């Protein structure tokens, strides 16, 4: 590819979210002014609390890690033309699977074996939860939006019951601490991160992003999956069986979301706690949307939403935290609307050149 073509592609990929961000900033200014604060001061506070100090940055990285997982999960589904709203439940199931393995393994199991075993369990549990709506769609034609949403309630309630009835430490809503499989925090090697939750699971999730890219664009299975998402009739003509692809796509989507559970359970608290997903599964939809369903875009979008989420805590002293949540919503709306608009403007600009 020539440099001009690269420039075109990068422009087409980055300009829409950039412009959406600008729109959101203006909306944010108005909101901040409405609560009687200075936008400049609030934004300064937001940046200081996130990228301005090592602890804040570590928290951003911690949140990024989970969002990469759920963002990849949603985007993989969308590549196959499926809307996976179930990342929340899959994330929780993954975390639970990792905790079970960590509890079952004897203390002193070599870290590499324990971490791999726990991560595999997380992927297995997440994948199992993802497989169900795929199978329902393939077998009965049940729409995955409905089934994935509903499965969230089933999975979360089921996990809640298991914890409360069988596994919890009294007076809490979490399991006992795992005996093996803990992933070291970043602060273990880089003391500046001291106190933040960021761990080396981020490396695992970055590898998952690279693996997702490789799968989508370099394997036969990924080729077929994208074909089903773009033009199901042409895929069928090309010998691809759509039902099998749906099952596979939603299962892999669940595997990715489940892997995200490792971040909390192995990297941070070392136990499974009721409600740890905390909406990260749903935010994954926004991450996939802003990241344009591309693994690299998902990583950047995850970083961005993690910054906003952490920044919301940082500015809580002067403006309500909900304001940042409103801002997230505005950004999602603006991105959704800006993609075709900005493309048109770029094309018009090129004609004038």
């Amino acid at each position, binding site marked *: 590819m020539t440099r001009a073509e690269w420039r075109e592609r990068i422009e087409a990929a980055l300009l829409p979210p950039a412009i959406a961000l600008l729109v959101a900033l203006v909306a944010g200014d108005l909101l901040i002014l409405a609560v009687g604060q200075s936008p400049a001061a609030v934004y300064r506070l937001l940046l200081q609390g996130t990228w301005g100090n090592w602890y804040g940055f570590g928290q951003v990285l911690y949140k990024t890690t989970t969002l990469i997982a759920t963002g990849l999960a949603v985007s993989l589904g969308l590549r196959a033309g499926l809307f996976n709203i179930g990342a929340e439940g899959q994330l929780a199931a993954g975390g639970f699977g990792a905790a079970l393995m960590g509890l079952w393994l004897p203390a002193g199991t070599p870290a590499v074996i324990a971490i791999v075993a726990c991560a595999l369990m997380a992927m297995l549990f997440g994948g199992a939860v993802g497989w169900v709506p795929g199978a329902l769609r393939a077998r009965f034609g049940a729409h995955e939006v409905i089934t994935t949403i509903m499965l969230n309630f089933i999975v979360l309630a089921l996990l809640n019951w298991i914890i409360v009835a069988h596994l919890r430490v009294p007076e809490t809503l979490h399991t006992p601490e795992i005996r093996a499989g803990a992933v070291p925090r970043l602060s273990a090697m880089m003391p500046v991160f001291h106190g933040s939750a960021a761990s080396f699971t981020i490396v695992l999730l970055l590898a998952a992003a690279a693996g997702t890219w490789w799968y989508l664009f370099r394997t*036969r299975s990924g080729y077929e999956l994208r074909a089903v998402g*773009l*033009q199901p009739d*042409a895929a*069928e*003509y*090309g*010998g691809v069986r759509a039902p099998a692809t749906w099952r596979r796509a939603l299962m892999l989507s669940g595997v990715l979301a489940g892997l995200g559970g490792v971040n909390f359970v192995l990297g941070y608290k070392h136990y499974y706690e009721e409600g740890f997903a905390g909406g990260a599964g749903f935010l994954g939809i926004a991450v996939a949307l802003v990241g344009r369903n591309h693994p690299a875009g998902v990583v950047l979008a995850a970083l961005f939403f993690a910054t906003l989420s952490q920044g919301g805590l940082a500015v809580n002293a002067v403006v309500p935290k909900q304001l940042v949540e409103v801002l997230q919503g505005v950004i999602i709306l603006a991105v959704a609307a800006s993609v075709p608009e900005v493309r048109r403007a770029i094309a018009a600009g090129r004609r004038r050149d």
Partner: protein
Amino acid sequence: MSDAVKLSGIEKRFGAVQANRGASLEVAAGEIHALVGENGAGKSTLMRILAGLIEPDAGMVQVSGRDVTGWRTGDAIAAGVGMVHQHFMLVPTLTVAENVVLGREPHRGPVLDLERARVDVTDVASRYGLRVEASRRVGDLSVGEAQRVEILKTLFRGARILILDEPTAVLSPLEVQDLWRVLRALKDGGGTIVLITHKLDEVMQISDRVTVMRRGETVARMATRETNPAELARAMVGREVALGGVALTARAPGPPGLVVRDLEVAGTRRARDVDGVSFTVASGEILGLAGVEGNGQSALLDAIAGLRPVASGSIALGARDITAASVAERAAAGLAHIPEDRHRRGLILDYSVADNLILGRQGRFARWGRLDRARVAEHARAAVERFDIRPPDASLPARALSGGNQQKIVIAREMGGDFSVLLAAQPTRGVDVGAIEFIHAQLRAARDAGKAVLLVSAELQEILALSDRVAVMYGGKLVGLMPRSQASEASLGPLMTGAA
């Protein structure tokens, strides 16, 4: 005579494709003007600019002497310019009258006045001799009737300048004659007609004047009676073209390649789309399947290709029964398929040319599940060169190519490898003269190389030019099967319309 329409210096670019480069067109009031050119020559783009659907990058559009450059469809309709599209834009569950008045429904207060709609529509229809029953549901109409509804819709909105985009592509020979009658009546009533087509016999039959486009430019304009098909073809392609094709050399039929026995396929709107069809295509033979569209040809091909379930009967490739085989298994057994709708089935428009060239054969380019990108690229390079796909850049998305070159991707993929039986559905639909010549040569070469070819085409001339034997389908049944020597437009026409 004054110019009803005058376009000059029109430029339009879509991404990497320059659709119009300084194109011009002058249409006198009260004439039938043919706009011809290869696919991708920019005819439709030029007319969409005239109808206000898209804005030109540069140039001027004048209607009846008024500068209307960059107007919108609403302005165009108000000024009496209407376009009948290749793909109908009708609501199948509504009646003819309801479709025609859509957007300007007569009403009494908040209540629709459907009776008045019916009367108004019948009135306009009879004024122009358009035979359609206003109270019928559009979903029940034949393609020819649906097209008349489209024309009626445009006229109802007061169109005096009518643009028709390849109107005969979906019509039987009889329906085409009907259409010509309607167009002549419109012209006699003072209307102006621009007819986009690439069929030269139509140009000769119906038009007063003709404009030829090539690669986005206007290259010739002349009075129809002062020209001839050979001259027009030369202007369209820019070189000599063999019209009508080469006579096939007679050959002794080979062993059976494709055997279909008592095939029945359940219907979507009627009981059976394919109703007890049996035939054999021998190796080294082209069997042409003629028929008006919608008489079961598509269902028959889909069933043979494994894309629609078979209710009863059997399908075999040579001695091997494939009735229950998957699409992939059929491909592996030697079945190649040029589908009728390349935009829906034949291509993944957002995939690169290279990726499209392996669709259906992706397994052969993978090892341990990994696509061998180097081999895919090498395969694409060879195919692009051998089949002269332009522009010769396999990394472009298929969407960026012209219709003719998109079809070449499909042809290259299906005919570039090993196969014993070829299903070719409308292989030259929406494809330019130069590419038609090329595709016909490929089909003949496949036959001469001992392949069994089942050719389905809405164009009788294509069937007659290529086939060793001709079959006719009507109402899901095979109503005729004869050697080429006994087939002619006169003998096939009645079979196609169920009259025989």
